[in-house]
C-alpha cells in the first residue's frame, strides 16, 4: 500500500511539474502570473537572505584561502590558491551553500504558506475567481526563487573571493590587483557558466518541490509540517544528486 501511495505521489509530482512548465511556456500571455508575488518572493528569498549569505561567504572564502595558502606555501605552490578558490568556491560551494540557505528559508516558507492556504480554502477561493493557482502561486514563486538564487550565488562568489583576499591579507600581505588578476587568469568561461546553470536548476527544484508539497496538503493543518519536512529532505537529496550530475556533465565535456 505504501509503495502504491509513493508511486501515486511521484506521478502527481511529475504531473505538477509538467503543468507548471506548460504554464511557463505561455508566460507572456498569462495574466495570472503576478508581478507582486514575484517581487515579494525575490525580496524574501534574495534580499532578506543577504546577511546570512554574506556571513557564510566571508567565512568560507576566508577559511579556504587561509588553509589553502598555508598548505600550498609549504610546497612553494602558494600561487595555486586561485585554482582552489575557483574550483571549490565558484564551481561548487557557492551554489550548494546558497541552495541550502534557500531551502532552509524559502523552501520551508513556500511549503508552509501554500499548505496553510489549502487548509484555509484560499486555493479554492482563487479557483472560484477563475485564477489558476499554478500560475498565480507556483509559477510566480518559481520565477522569484530562480532570479533570487542566481543573484545570491553571484553575490556569494563576489563576497567569498573578496572576503578571502581580505582575510588572507591579515596574515599574509597580498596586493589586491595581483590577487584579482591571478584569480581572473584561472577563471574560465565554463566555470562562470556552471556557476550560473546550477542556481537556475536548484532554484527550480526548491520552488517546485516546496510548492508541490504545500499544495499536496489535503485538509488538516497537522499535514503542513509533515509536508514541509518532506519538501526539505527531497530538495536536499535532489540538489546533491543534480549537483553531481551537472559537475560530471561539465567535466565530461571539458
Amino acid at each position: 500500500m505504501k509503495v502504491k501511495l509513493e508511486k501515486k505521489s511521484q506521478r502527481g509530482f511529475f504531473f505538477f511539474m509538467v503543468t507548471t512548465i506548460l504554464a511557463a511556456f505561455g508566460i507572456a500571455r498569462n495574466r495570472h502570473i503576478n508581478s507582486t508575488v514575484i517581487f515579494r518572493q525575490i525580496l524574501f528569498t534574495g534580499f532578506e537572505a543577504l546577511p546570512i549569505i554574506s556571513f557564510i561567504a566571508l567565512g568560507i572564502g576566508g577559511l579556504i584561502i587561509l588553509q589553502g595558502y598555508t598548505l600550498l606555501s609549504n610546497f612553494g605552490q602558494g600561487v595555486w590558491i586561485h585554482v582552489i578558490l575557483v574550483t571549490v568556491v565558484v564551481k561548487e560551494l557557492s551554489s550548494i551553500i546558497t541552495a541550502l540557505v534557500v531551502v532552509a528559508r524559502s523552501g520551508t516558507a513556500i511549503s508552509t504558506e501554500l499548505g496553510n492556504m489549502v487548509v484555509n480554502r484560499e486555493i479554492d477561493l482563487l479557483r472560484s475567481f477563475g485564477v489558476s493557482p499554478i500560475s498565480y502561486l507556483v509559477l510566480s514563486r518559481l520565477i522569484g526563487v530562480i532570479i533570487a538564487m542566481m543573484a545570491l550565488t553571484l553575490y556569494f562568489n563576489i563576497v567569498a573571493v573578496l572576503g578571502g583576499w581580505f582575510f588572507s591579507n591579515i596574515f599574509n600581505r597580498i596586493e589586491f590587483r595581483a590577487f584579482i588578476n591571478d584569480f581572473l587568469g584561472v577563471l574560465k568561461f565554463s566555470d562562470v557558466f556552471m556557476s550560473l546553470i546550477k542556481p537556475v536548476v536548484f532554484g527550480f527544484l526548491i520552488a517546485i518541490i516546496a510548492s508541490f508539497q504545500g499544495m499536496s496538503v489535503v485538509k488538516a493543518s497537522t499535514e503542513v509540517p509533515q509536508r514541509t519536512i518532506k519538501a526539505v529532505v527531497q530538495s536536499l537529496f535532489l540538489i546533491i544528486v543534480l549537483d553531481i550530475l551537472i559537475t560530471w556533465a561539465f567535466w565530461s565535456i571539458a
Partner: protein
Amino acid sequence: MKLQVKDFPIPGSDLVLSLEPGKVILLKDETYVKAEALLEALCGINDSFEQLIVIDETPISDFPAGGSDVFAYVFDEGIMISNLTLVENLYLPFQLRFGNDKRESFEQELENWMQVFELKTDLSLRPAFVKAAQKKLLCYIRALLLKPRVLLFDNPLYLLSSNERRRLLSILEDLKRDFAMLICSNDDEFASGFCSSIITIPA
C-alpha cells in the same frame, strides 16, 4: 439563463432552474453536502462533482473560465487570501476580470459599495486583523464588483450579528432586481419572504 444539472439531486432526475434577475432560489439541504457541492461545482472548485452541468445548452466545461465568469461565490466563512491586504484581496479578481487599466473605476465602485454596506474598515489591513463579520461583508462586495450574472451564497447570514443580518437582508432585497441568486442555507429567516422558490434536496 437556464441551468440544468443532470442526475441531480438523485440519479434519474434533472435539476432545471431558470436564473433571471429578481429570482432568488434557495437550496435547502439538511446534510449541506449536496447543495454546497453544487455551488462549488458551478464556480469550478469541485472536481469531484460528477453530474453534468449545462448553462443555456452549453456544458459548463466549455466556458472559457469554467463558471467563474457567470457566477460569483461568497463562501460561508468569508475567506480571503491571508498574505494580501483587504484592498488587494478585493482588487485581485477585479483586475483579472477587467484588466489592469481599470483601477480608477474599481476604486469608485468600491467606495460606492462600502457606503451601501455602511463599512468603514481600513482596507490597508491584512484579513487577520479584521472581524469575521466585516470580512464576510467585504466578500459580498468582492463578489458584486465582479458584476456576475448569478450570485452564489453559501449560508449568507453565517458569522453575522442580528443587526448585520437585518442590514444585509435589506441590501440583498435591493440587489434582487439586478442579479439572480442561488443560495444554499437552512436558515428559516431566508426561507420566509426573501426567496422566490425553495428546493429541498433529499438526503
